[in-house]
């Protein structure tokens, strides 16, 4: 150790006192656990207790009531839930089909170009999704790139497809593509080449290799990708607000309305709790099926 000895020495001493109290695992985990306790678990507890609060109140410390949950059942919130669930499910199906060839290419075909191509798919993750979705508005809007282009080339005037339910799914496919692609790529990279080759040598057709060998072996990655896109899809809000033009109110939008416009925090909290239950159960159910250490180490 060099010049800054006294300070470093006291840090060392502090660490070693802590070290005697805790083994290395929990010791290293403690800052992150503290952050998650204050910033994740506590807010969730707050939202759960708010959901049992008196409707339209801003105070948690009172007799709990189920009134908010009753309101949810009696009114038409189930429609927003169904919209969110079906949009999310459709997104998963489309993305699985769209991403499979790309993931296969990244693992088997592109070779040393794979890293650079992966980077092209990573970049959009860092650009605010409303900016990217707004680009699509400029593309699809009347007088925009698509319709303006068609008019200039062929002189045909066409109606814009913006602000319709299919556009919401389109936007979700666009925004969540990397979340399906990367886990899928990880999954496919877990399929050993010699196994697929052995299968073809033994006379399996391309389709059989895909169905009997590739798909089952790549399943952990594909399942995680599907879960990720489904969960993110249920939580999606910007797509419906920007591209859907509020033609459909999804569940997250309902929650936001309850918190902002109608100032009914307990109702918003109750809706959030239901959404959290769906997401939490799904995530933990999928994650508990796989050995994370094994999947992540493969990279």
């Amino acid at each position, binding site marked *: 150790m060099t010049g800054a000895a006294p300070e470093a020495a006291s840090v*060392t001493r502090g*660490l070693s006192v802590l*070290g005697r109290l805790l083994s290395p*695992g929990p*010791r*290293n*985990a403690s*800052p*992150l*656990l503290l*952050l*998650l306790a204050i*910033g*994740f678990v506590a*807010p*969730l507890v707050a*939202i759960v207790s*708010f959901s049992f609060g008196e409707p339209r109140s801003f105070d*948690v410390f009172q007799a709990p009531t189920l009134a908010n949950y009753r309101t949810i059942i009696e009114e038409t919130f189930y429609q927003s839930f169904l919209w969110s669930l079906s949009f999310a499910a459709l997104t998963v199906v489309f993305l699985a089909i769209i991403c499979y060839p*790309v993931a*296969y*290419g990244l693992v088997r*075909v592109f070779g040393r170009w794979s*890293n650079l191509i992966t*980077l*092209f*798919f990573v970049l959009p*993750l*860092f*650009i*605010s*999704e*409303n*900016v*990217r979705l*707004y*680009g*699509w*508005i*400029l593309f699809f809007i009347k*007088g*925009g*790139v698509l319709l303006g*282009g068609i008019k*200039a080339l062929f002189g045909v005037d066409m109606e814009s497809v913006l602000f319709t339910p299919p556009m919401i799914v389109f936007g979700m496919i666009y925004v969540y593509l990397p979340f399906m692609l990367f886990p899928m790529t990880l999954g496919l990279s877990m399929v050993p080449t010699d196994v697929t080759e052995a299968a*073809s040598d033994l006379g399996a057709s391309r389709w059989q290799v895909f169905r009997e060998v590739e798909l089952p072996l790549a399943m952990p990655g594909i399942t995680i990708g599907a879960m990720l896109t489904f*969960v*993110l899809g*249920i*939580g999606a*809000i910007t797509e419906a607000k*920007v591209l859907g033009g509020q033609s459909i109110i999804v569940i997250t939008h309902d929650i936001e309305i309850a918190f902002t416009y109608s100032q009914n925090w307990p109702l918003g909290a109750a809706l959030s709790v239901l*959404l*959290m239950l769906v997401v*939490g159960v799904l*995530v*933990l159910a999928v994650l508990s099926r796989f050995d*994370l250490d094994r999947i*992540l*180490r493969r990279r």
Partner: protein
Amino acid sequence: MTDRGKRTTNSLIVAWTAAIIVFIYLPAVCGLLASLTGSRYFLFPIQKWSLVWWGKTFASLEIRSLLDTSITIALIVTTVSVVIAFFGALAFARYNWRGRKLYQRLVLLPIFFPQSVLGLALLLWFNTLGMELSWKTAVLAHLVWITPVVTLVISIQVYSFDPALEEAAEDLGANRWQVLREVTLPVLWPGIFSGALFAFLLSWGNFPLSLFTTGADSTVPEYLYAKMVAGYTPGVPVMGTVSTIGAAILLLGGYGLISLVRRRRGH
């Protein structure tokens, strides 16, 4: 499968991937086009090309203060999240301890959690605590979501780290602080660097968490959203293009740096 069949499949895959990349970058191109229009509203094909909106946007004081807020938040989030995530990743991937499986799942849960709901939950929580909302509360909100992501990124590097290196240094008489500085940090450097890059960019681009937690302050994505909903000016695509290009430069530059260092080290 025959060689010819394989070659056809491969070229189809290349074509498909190229089409998807075009699909991904098409909106950014539309934004660039819209920012280069001279008129107040975007009409395609563009009649009058001009850089006038770029000039106006950069001269605006409002935009400067937005950039200030966004960059301050992103820098603080990057620093704090990387420090916490570094230790978090060691606990995630390096050490075997009771409760690790549970810890791993707890760390992953915020990443998968709907961000708008997390933002609202934090709003409610800050309100319960009586905290005043500002960019500082937004820093905490970003940390809750970004630190787990960074932990995951660094963990991937930690998995390929050989613990024997640390033990060897200890056997040679290094204390814990020296081991950390001379062995662990240099070996994990690429993972830490990518983690920092992720943290900065994710904070920079975040909208749903900022929306509910910045209070009276405003970040670039929030401003853009407000302008998109009401009050479009070509300044919106200008700022959109700026953040796209900025992210691209950071990401490609960072990637270039990592591969350069790797090559130097002879991997």
